[in-house]
Every structure is written in C-alpha cells, then in structure tokens.
C-alpha cells in the first residue's frame, strides 16, 4: 500500500515523555489497525525535531517533572501539534502529556508552569501521589465499556466548560473531583497508564474510527481476560 494511504501515527517526544510504558498505546493502535488491513506508519518525534502537521493520530505520554516542563516549552515553540489538531487530527494525551495540554500544570516544586492550551483544563500539584488501579464509567455519549488502568501522578486537574469529563471514577483518583480524564472533539486526555489502550481496546478503536471510519470487530479475548482480572481485583463483589 502506498504510504499516502497509510494511517500516520505520530508519537510525540518519546525521549522526554515515555517512561511509563506508553509505547504500548502506539503498539496497540498499530496492531489493531493492521489486523483490519489498515497500513500504519509511525513517526517517533524526538524533542529536538519539529512535530509534523500531517499525522492522523498523535500520542503523548507520561514522564518526570523536568522533562514535562521541557516538553511543554518545546511544543509551544514548535506549534506543529496545534496546527495538526486545528486541522482535525486525533490526539490521546496521557498523564504528564495530558496536563501539558491545559493552561497550567504544577512544576517540580509545585510552581505553576504554562501548558500549551490545547484543552480547556488546568492542573496543579495535589496533596498526595495518586498511585494504583483506577476504574471509571465512560461518558455515555462515547458508548464505551468501563475504563480500567493504572494511575501514578500528583496532579489535580480542573475541567473548564470547553471539555467534557471522559469518565466518572469508581475506584481511584483521576482528575481529583470524581472524574477521570476529559475529551473534546477528537482530543482525549487521561491519567491512565496500563497502558490505557491495552487495557481499553474499545478506546483504541474509538480513536482509530475517528481516523479510518467503521472498523470490523476483532477477537478481543486476550484483552477481555486481562480486563476482567483487573476489574475483579479492585471492584467490590
């Protein structure tokens, strides 16, 4: 298949923000696209390089405080991601990458640091680290099964009127206000690792369908076995 018909996945700054297995989101998207005969082409954009504007699906992951601040500075200066999203591209932003998308987030000492303003959210440093399994019911409009994953962050995220909560938490902290993550248009933010798309293949398919339209169903028994085990481990009987 010629490369102009392939699904273009852009992984933003793996050199700064990929310390929590977030590469898994890329791998799951590639795999689920290919199993449906959709060719993929993945670009790993290092932080010294410009973010291409012609991608279909952008991913950004989690990381330490200092790399998070560096990533925000560079994304703002670069502008490529802003132009891609304005052009209708899909984005999944995870943890530190999620916080960056807002107006501000908490730095190394809790000081407010400017985000890149792609989402109407603002984050600050919370009182304690939120670490552990998270379970949440996804906003009904998205028609997705229960969200499961692992959170590990110190952020509290406040959602503005320009976004909707992605889900309502049953177990775990998430944004810190009873909700986990947010979305607007084709941009999704979440605190979830696990990685998020390995634990929630339906969310992976939602992102893919935003790029490629209707998708044939897959045999998801491996995903389902893991999901059931994780949900059973933390949900009360």
């Amino acid at each position: 298949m010629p490369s102009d018909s392939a699904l273009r996945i852009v992984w933003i700054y793996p050199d700064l923000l990929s310390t929590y297995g977030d590469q898994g989101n890329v791998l799951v998207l590639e795999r689920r696209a290919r199993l449906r005969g959709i060719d993929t082409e993945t670009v790993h954009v290092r932080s010294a390089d410009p973010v291409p504007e012609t991608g279909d699906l952008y991913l950004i992951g989690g990381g330490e405080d200092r790399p998070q601040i560096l990533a925000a500075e560079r994304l703002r200066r670069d502008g490529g991601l802003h132009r891609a999203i304005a052009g209708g591209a899909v984005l999944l932003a995870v943890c530190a990458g999620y916080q960056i998308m807002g107006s501000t987030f908490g730095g190394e000492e809790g000081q407010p640091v400017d985000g890149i303003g792609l989402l109407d959210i603002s984050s600050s440093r919370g009182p304690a680290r939120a670490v552990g399994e998270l379970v949440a019911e996804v906003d009904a409009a998205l028609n997705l099964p229960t969200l499961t994953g692992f959170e590990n962050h110190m952020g509290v995220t406040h959602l503005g009127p320009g976004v909707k909560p992605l889900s309502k938490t049953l177990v775990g902290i998430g944004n810190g206000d009873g909700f986990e993550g947010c979305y607007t248009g084709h941009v999704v933010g979440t605190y979830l690792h696990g990685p998020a798309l390995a634990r929630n293949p339906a969310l992976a398919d939602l992102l893919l369908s935003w790029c490629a339209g209707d998708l044939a169903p897959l045999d998801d028994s491996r995903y389902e076995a893991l999901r059931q085990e994780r949900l059973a481990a933390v949900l009360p009987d």
Partner: protein
Amino acid sequence: MTQLPLRAQLASALGRSAATLSRMTGRGDGSVIGGRVGLLLEPDLLRKLARDRKLALISATNGKTTTTRLVTSALLELGEVATNAFGANMPAGHVSALSQHKGAPYGVLEVDEKYLPEVLDTTGAGVVCLMNLSRDQMDRAAEIWLLAQKWRRALSGKPTHVIANCDDPLVTWGASTAAKVTWVAGGQRWKEDSWCCPECGGPLDRKDADWACRECTFHRPEPQWAVDDDVAIDPNGERWLLDIQLPGAANRSNAVMALAVADAFGVPVERALPRLREVTSVAGRYTTVERDGRYARLLLSKNPAGWLEAFDVADPQLPIILAVNAQGPDGRDTSWLWDVDYRILRGRPVFVTGQRRLDLALRLDVADVPFMLCDTFNEALAMQPPGRVDVIANYTAFQQIRSEFGRAV
C-alpha cells in the same frame, strides 16, 4: 576491630538472633529482619558499625547484587569482608551485614539507589561504584533524573572516590560532582532513558560509545578503564581476558567495574581477576535447577533494561519460561512490560506464567509472539522436553521459583 558502645552491641546482638530465627523458620535470608530489629534499638548503629572500616558502596538500577558479589570476591584478597550478599540493600540490611562480620576490616555494601545519599552520609564510605540508571518500578521508585540530582548533592564536598560508568550519561552526571572519579567505559545497552542531556535537557548526540550534548558542554568523560567484548582494558592500556563464568555482556561490564573498584583498594587485576572467575551464581541468579531431567537456568530481570540483558544471556536455541508478578517489590504497575521488545523471542517455544501472566500474554500477543499460558511455574517446567530451558522472572516471581528449589543459590 570495631569497638561498639554497649547499647549498640546489644542492639546488634539482638538483630543477629532475629536473623537466625528468620532463617530457622524459613521465612527468608534473615538479612532484613535482623537489621530492622537492630535499627529500632539503635538508630545510629549503622554509623558505629561502619566506623574504622574501609567501605565500598555499590549502586545502580541493575547489576547491584552481582557487582557487590564480584567486588567482595576480589577484596577477599585483602582480608575479611562484610557484605549484604542477599540483596537486602537498605540500611537495615547494611546493619545486619556489618554486625555479622564485626571484625571485618572491609565492607562491600549493595545500596538501593534511593538510599545512596543517606547511606553515604551515615557510613562515610571511601569508595562508591555507580553502574547504570534506568526506569524501574515506577509506582514507588524515585524518578531517575531526580535520583541522579540527589547523588550529585550527596557526593559534592566529600572525599569519596567514585568509580562510575561513563557510557551512561545520567550516571556520569550523577557522579560528576565527586572529588575523584575513575571513569569506566562499561557500555550501555538500554538507551531509552538517556536521549536528553541531564544538565540542560538538550539532545544528546551519540556516535558509537561517545556522546555529547548539542546545546551545552556536557559530554562523555575520557574513560580510564574499558570493556571490549571479553577483554578488560586497564588504565595502562593493558588488555586482560576476562573469561568469567557469569554469562552475558552485562556481567562482563560488572566485572570491569569490579576490577576498577578492587584497584581503588589496592588489589591489582592479576590478583582480582582469578577471584571474579570463581563466581558462578549470585543469590540464585544464573544458577541451574533440575527437576525430572529438566535443567532450568534462572535469570532475574526487574525492568526493561534488565530484560534486555537477560535476552542477551538466554540461548536462542532453547525454550524459555517467562514469569511476571506485580507484588510490592516488583512494582504494582505492569505498564513497563510494554517497554520491553519481546519480538526477539519469535521462533522459540515461549511459556508464560506468574501472577500477572495475563498482562504478559496480551503484551506478547500484540508483539505477535506465540506462547503457551501456564497457571504455575511447575506446570510450565513439566511441559518442557527433558533438557535445558531458560527462565526469566521478575523479583518476587524469581524468589518463588528459587523457594521451590530450596532457595537455590
């Protein structure tokens, strides 16, 4: 030789009997519980036990236990050595190790990366050996950039002699505030945590082993020691065939680090190297256990960099059993499995077990690596044809397997 005040002697003796009890009841190697009892009674015990001894602290994300063992073997050339041989690498373990060898003039202590500043302050160790830093058990471990920053602060203004791996940029940064550093080109297989300059955040340019920041002056220091395949190169440029029994490139690197540490203690390569060659397994790592004609070689790997090292050791001709847990010491977040490239296992018979086998199963499925899912290690072992098999397990999975075979060492 260490004359302890009475209260410290009592604390140390009570700690030893708790350790004996722990071993007798089969609950562990006894090294942590003994130290904990001791520390409760005498918080300053570690300082007192360390006094008047020549100490080396060994720290890294991977290879701490093995390198501690290698350095200990080399220093036995000089006399009795106190060491925490079983990987109890926090202050309680150090107290336990030092109080079990009261008269030992030398000590080699494996130190958890996070505890290094505290243990260095407390013990005033003269030598510190730093090998590598990479992502590890993210749900509880300190973040590594921050960790290297703390090493810098701890080493600054002390007379400590540091032996550090200059092929790892983050280790180099962490070590470079020390008054005296011996740089060892120990190699770096896992590079995913060092694409950015620790000093300024700029991109690191790499050419072969060399690296330098594109935006500031931070660069790889000139090494005094180096590892070149199975050869150690000493500061005089002399080449020594390592020929150690521990397998893999990571252990050849550990061995050269150990030779440099031994040299700092005045043990020359010609005396240290034969001692390193005597080491065949380390607290169960690399040991082979047998059941019903199945010979399983046990490899421990706790994080993505460790898996890369284990894949380097594993025999591509053999079947392989993978066991993954996510208990406290392993980290409860299994996301790291997605940082490991499992595609190297394609074409081998692969067996998956451990408490988090479903996480690993999905991971392998997405990597297009066929495998068999087994409820237990014993089931996986019984499925093997008679002969050899490699086993890679993370921390608690490894300890469970070791226990099955009478805490194999």
